[in-house]
């Protein structure tokens, strides 16, 4: 998104820090539950509340989830990593520090590919991924003088995933988040639910003249939806261009996104807080991983979106765009493949992406709670392929399948929708229509081709949509000539 300012074009440079909540039953360093929506402070151990003398013990599944995510991002796995204390005071951080990883994170450099809408691919570098604890949750709107604090979230395992400043448009930032979410959902390492706060982003934005060194960046904290991330980038980049073109300079600062006004503003409380005084946590030894164990995790990874996309393009002759849409979500990909196996992949893609997605969207449902199973769609596609019903009839049958959950064959049989393949019956219908519209048919004979379509429509109507429109068309043409 080159921005046009008064002094010409500006390039926007974007990097993202994503906090992704790890899928695990218990917390990173305690045995308290992680489930969303519990009564306040009922999922808190003495470790999470930082009671004196309590010691953290690491949850092995949180470690494997972080490693698996790193492998999914084709990143270096650091066999030795270190936990540090990040020190700051806030009411929902009972220990006065967050256990995080600073100089030696568990995962190093990796890559993520963006599927651009024009079918091309753009690579974004991953700088690192580290493990850390979440803080508690503060509620400020319950009392005029008090803030309420719930520590259920305190101590839940997070992965902080930092990208290189490789993105140039709000759209690319959106695609990055979508892809990261998709990979983590394939892996089952983060549910990607932004509404419940399982995935939050800090957005780093700076602007520069094309080719110039990087400008000073501002960090927009805790943006919690894809749409807000894009709005924050649009606003922030324009704000910076206006300041620089007005003769000002950008101060490196932390800002907040205001979702009501789609603007950003400086965050006051952080002015003094950037001195976190990290040091290795004396309660925890370095985390050392067995290379064999890492290899085992690598071997057990599921097929990930990029690999699946390439395979779908190869095995089912799909375009990059169609394949990208179908693999974005693991359930959708599995559904598509269940229908497509042994059938025309392109045709099935049209049914799944056009007819099924359209109806699901309208009904506010996802593939996993589709009223029509993959096997049922397959049955319908077969009925079209073998000429039992026309494509047009199939859409009506699909509507009924969607509404009632009945099978395609059962509906076709009950409603007598089987296509008329008996040419005698079609001919009779055609003759009837011609007899009733003799004058018009003379015009067709005289070469007015546009009217032919109208005749096809009339014959289809006369046969209750059960004739094959292609053969009706052909027979009408013969009659016009003969």
């Amino acid at each position, binding site marked *: 998104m080159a921005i046009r300012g008064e002094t010409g074009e500006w390039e926007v440079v974007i990097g993202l820090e994503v906090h992704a909540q790890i899928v*695990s*039953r*218990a917390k990173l360093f*305690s*045995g*308290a*539950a992680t489930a969303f929506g519990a*009564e*306040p*402070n*009922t*999922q*808190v*151990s*003495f*470790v999470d*509340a930082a009671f004196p003398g309590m010691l953290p*013990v*690491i*949850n*092995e*599944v*949180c*470690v494997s989830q972080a490693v698996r995510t790193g492998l999914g991002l084709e990143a270096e796995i650091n066999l030795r990593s*270190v936990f540090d204390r990040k*020190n700051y*005071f*806030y*009411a929902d951080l009972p220990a006065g520090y967050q256990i995080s990883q600073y100089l030696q994170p568990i995962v190093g450099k990796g890559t993520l590919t963006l599927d651009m809408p024009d079918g091309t691919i753009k690579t974004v570098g991953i700088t690192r991924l580290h493990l850390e604890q979440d803080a508690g949750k*503060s*509620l*400020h709107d*319950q*009392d*005029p*003088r*008090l*803030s*309420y*604090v*719930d*520590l259920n979230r305190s101590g839940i395992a997070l992965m902080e995933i930092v990208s290189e400043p490789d993105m140039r448009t709000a759209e690319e930032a959106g695609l990055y988040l979508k892809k990261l979410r998709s990979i983590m959902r394939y892996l089952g390492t983060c549910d990607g639910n932004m509404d419940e706060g399982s995935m939050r982003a800090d957005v780093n934005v700076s602007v520069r003249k094309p080719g110039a060194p990087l400008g000073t960046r501002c960090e927009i904290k805790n943006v919690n939806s894809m749409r807000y991330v894009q709005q924050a980038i649009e606003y922030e980049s324009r704000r910076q261009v206006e300041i620089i073109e007005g003769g000002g300079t950008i101060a490196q600062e932390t800002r*907040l996104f205001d979702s009501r006004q789609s603007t950003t503003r400086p*965050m*006051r*409380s952080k002015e*003094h807080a950037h*001195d976190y*005084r990290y040091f*290795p946590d004396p309660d*925890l*030894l*370095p*985390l*050392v991983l067995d290379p064999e164990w890492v290899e085992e995790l690598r071997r057990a990874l599921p097929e990930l979106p990029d690999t699946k996309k390439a395979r779908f393009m190869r095995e089912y002759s799909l375009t990059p765009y169609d394949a990208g849409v179908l693999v974005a979500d693991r359930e959708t990909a599995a559904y598509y493949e269940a229908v497509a196996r042994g059938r025309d992949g392109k045709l099935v893609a049209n049914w799944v992406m056009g007819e099924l997605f359209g109806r699901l969207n309208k009904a506010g449902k996802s593939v996993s709670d589709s009223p029509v199973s993959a096997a049922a769609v397959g049955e319908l596609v077969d009925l079209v392929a073998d000429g039992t019903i026309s494509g047009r009839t199939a859409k009506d049958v699909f509507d009924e399948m969607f509404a009632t959950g009945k099978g395609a064959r059962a509906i076709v049989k009950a409603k007598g929708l089987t296509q008329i393949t008996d040419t005698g019956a079609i001919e009779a219908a055609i003759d009837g229509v011609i007899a009733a519209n003799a004058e018009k048919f003379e015009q067709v004979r005289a070469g007015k081709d546009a009217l032919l379509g109208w005749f096809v429509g009339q014959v289809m109507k006369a046969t209750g949509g059960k004739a094959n429109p292609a053969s009706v068309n052909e027979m009408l043409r013969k009659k016009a000539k003969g």
Partner: protein
Amino acid sequence: MALDKATVAHIARLARLRVEDKDLEPMARELDGILAWIEQLNEVDTSGVEPMASVVDARLPRRKDEVIDGGQAEKILANATGAAHGFFTVPKVVE
């Protein structure tokens, strides 16, 4: 290294300690003494020596991913200076 008053005031602020202005100067001197003492360690040549994380040669112990704790809101809140409806309460901190 010589600590000045401003650095001591900054450290005190980060640690949420109230230090009276008249105490900053003496405290800077005290901390300076401690740092000078610690800095003697710099005289030891440690090139090629791995930093030691612990005196015990142990592997970081791990826990299974099982929920075995929680469900004790009243105990968690027992020592709180303020609590209401199951929450801790603190003077309003809002951005």
